C-alpha cells in the first residue's frame, strides 16, 4: 500500500483547474496551425488567427481562454495499491476546485440545484468518475467542460440493423445540429457500445486522447478519419461563418454491447478544449 494524502490531491486539482483555463495544451495549439494551413474561408482564417492570439493572451496575461471556465469533470484512475489518507477523495477534489476557481479568478458557473438554480459561488462540485486500476498511483484527468457545447451533446440508441452506416450518419447529424452554437471548430468524443450510461462515459473519456493522434484500433481509426473528413465538408467552418474547419477531431471509444443494442453517445466539445492530467 502506498499512501497518498488528500492535501496533495487538493493542490494538484487546484493547479490543474488554473492551468487548464489559462494554458491550452500543445495538441490544441497544433490543431490551430494545421487548420490555418488548409482553411479556405477568409472569415474562418480570421477566427482561427484570433483563437491563436486568444490562447497566447490567456497564457501570458492570465485571462481565462474563455469566460465559461467550465464544469470540472474529473476522471480518477486510482491504483488498487494506493491508499488515500487525510479525508475523502471527492471532498479533496472539490476543495481543489474551490481553491483553483476562487484564487484563479475563474468563473463560478455551477448552480446547487437544477431547480432553484442558486450559484454555489466557487464552481463546486465537480463531476467525478473513479476507476480502480492496477498499480499504486492516482491519476487525475481533468477537463473544464464548457456549457454551450455540452448542451449540444446527444445520445441515441440505434438498432443493430442500422449498423456502422447508421452510426456515421448519427454522428454527422450531431455535428450539424451543434453547428455554430457549440463554438466550432469542434472536437467530438464518441462512445459506441456498452449500455446507456457506459456510452455516455466513454464519450467524455474519449476527449482525453491527444488531438491528432491515431486511434489504437485501426478499424476505428479509419472510421474517425472518414467522419472527420465528412464533418469538414459540411461547410459550417470556424464559428459557423462558413469554411473547411468544422471539427478538429472525432475520437471514438467502443465497448462490447448487448445483441439488441447499438448505443451511441456524442459529447460535443468546443475549441476551448481545456484538459490536463497529472499522476500522483
Amino acid at each position, binding site marked *: 500500500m502506498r499512501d497518498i494524502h488528500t492535501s496533495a490531491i487538493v493542490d494538484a486539482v487546484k493547479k490543474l483547474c488554473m492551468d487548464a483555463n489559462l494554458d491550452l495544451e500543445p495538441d490544441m495549439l497544433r490543431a490551430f496551425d494545421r487548420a490555418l494551413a488548409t482553411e479556405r474561408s477568409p472569415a474562418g482564417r480570421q477566427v482561427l488567427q484570433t483563437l491563436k492570439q486568444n490562447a497566447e493572451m490567456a497564457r501570458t496575461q492570465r*485571462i481565462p481562454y474563455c*469566460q465559461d471556465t467550465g464544469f470540472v469533470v474529473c476522471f480518477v484512475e486510482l491504483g488498487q495499491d494506493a491508499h488515500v489518507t487525510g479525508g475523502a477523495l471527492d471532498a479533496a477534489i472539490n476543495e481543489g476546485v474551490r481553491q483553483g476557481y476562487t484564487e484563479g479568478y475563474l468563473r*463560478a458557473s455551477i448552480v446547487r440545484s437544477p431547480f432553484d438554480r442558486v450559484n454555489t459561488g466557487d464552481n463546486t462540485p465537480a463531476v467525478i468518475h473513479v476507476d480502480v486500476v492496477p498499480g499504486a498511483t492516482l491519476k487525475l484527468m481533468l477537463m473544464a467542460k464548457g456549457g454551450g457545447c455540452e448542451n449540444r451533446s446527444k445520445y441515441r440508441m440505434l438498432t443493430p440493423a442500422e449498423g456502422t452506416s447508421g452510426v456515421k450518419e448519427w454522428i454527422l447529424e450531431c455535428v450539424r445540429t451543434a453547428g455554430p452554437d457549440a*463554438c466550432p471548430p469542434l472536437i467530438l468524443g464518441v462512445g459506441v457500445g456498452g449500455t446507456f450510461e457506459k456510452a455516455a462515459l466513454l464519450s467524455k473519456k474519449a476527449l482525453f486522447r491527444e488531438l491528432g493522434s491515431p486511434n489504437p484500433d485501426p478499424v476505428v481509426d479509419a472510421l474517425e478519419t472518414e467522419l472527420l473528413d465528412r464533418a469538414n465538408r*459540411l*461547410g459550417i467552418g470556424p464559428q459557423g461563418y462558413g469554411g473547411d474547419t468544422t471539427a478538429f477531431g472525432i475520437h471514438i471509444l467502443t465497448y462490447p454491447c448487448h445483441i439488441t443494442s447499438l448505443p451511441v453517445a456524442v459529447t460535443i466539445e468546443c475549441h476551448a478544449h481545456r484538459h490536463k492530467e497529472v499522476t500522483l
Partner: protein
Amino acid sequence: MSVTTAADGIKEVAPPLSDADVESLKAGDRVRITGVLYTARDAAHGRLLPLIEKGAPLPIDVRGQIIYYTGPSPARPGSIVGSIGPTTASRMDTYVPALLGLGLKGTIGKGYRGQAVKDALRQHKGVYFGAIGGAGAVLSQFVKKLSIVAYEDLGTEAIRRLEVEAFPAIVVNDCHGGDLYQDGMKAYAREDT
C-alpha cells in the same frame, strides 16, 4: 448616422442605433462597435420578462441599444474585466421579440437563432451580431469601462454596462432576412456529405 464604413471596409457601429442604421447592416458585414453595450444572459432576462409583461420600467432603457449575451469571468485586481466572450444566443430567443418591441436594436451572441427571432428582427428592425465564441481573453481588451447596473446578486449574470472601443463582431442575422450561417455553409459545403 451611427453606422459608417471605415477605409478598411469594416463598418463602425456606435449605439444608439436607428432603424436606418440597422437597415444598412447586412449579414456577413464585419463591424467594430464603439460605445455602450449592456450585458444580460439567462437569469437577468428571466427577471426582465415579468417587468415587460407588467409594463413596468426596466432597469435599463433599451431603446436603440445593444445587449451582449455574456457572463464575464471575475476581473483580476487592477483589470477592468476578466474573460468576456459571447454565450449561446438561442437560450435568450424567447425574450427577443418583446425586447425588440421596446426598441432594443441589437444583440450579440453566438449560434443559431430561431425563426421567431428572425421574424422579429425584420418586423422591428433589429440585428443579431456574432462575436467569436471562446475568444474571451482577446475580447476583454476592447472593454474600457464596466459597471453593474442591476441584479448584482446574480454574480456573473448581473446586468453590466460596458463601454467598448472597436469591439469586433460580424452581422449574422440582419433585418432583411440575411443569414451568415446559411450563406457561409452554402459557400463552403463540398459535395457528397
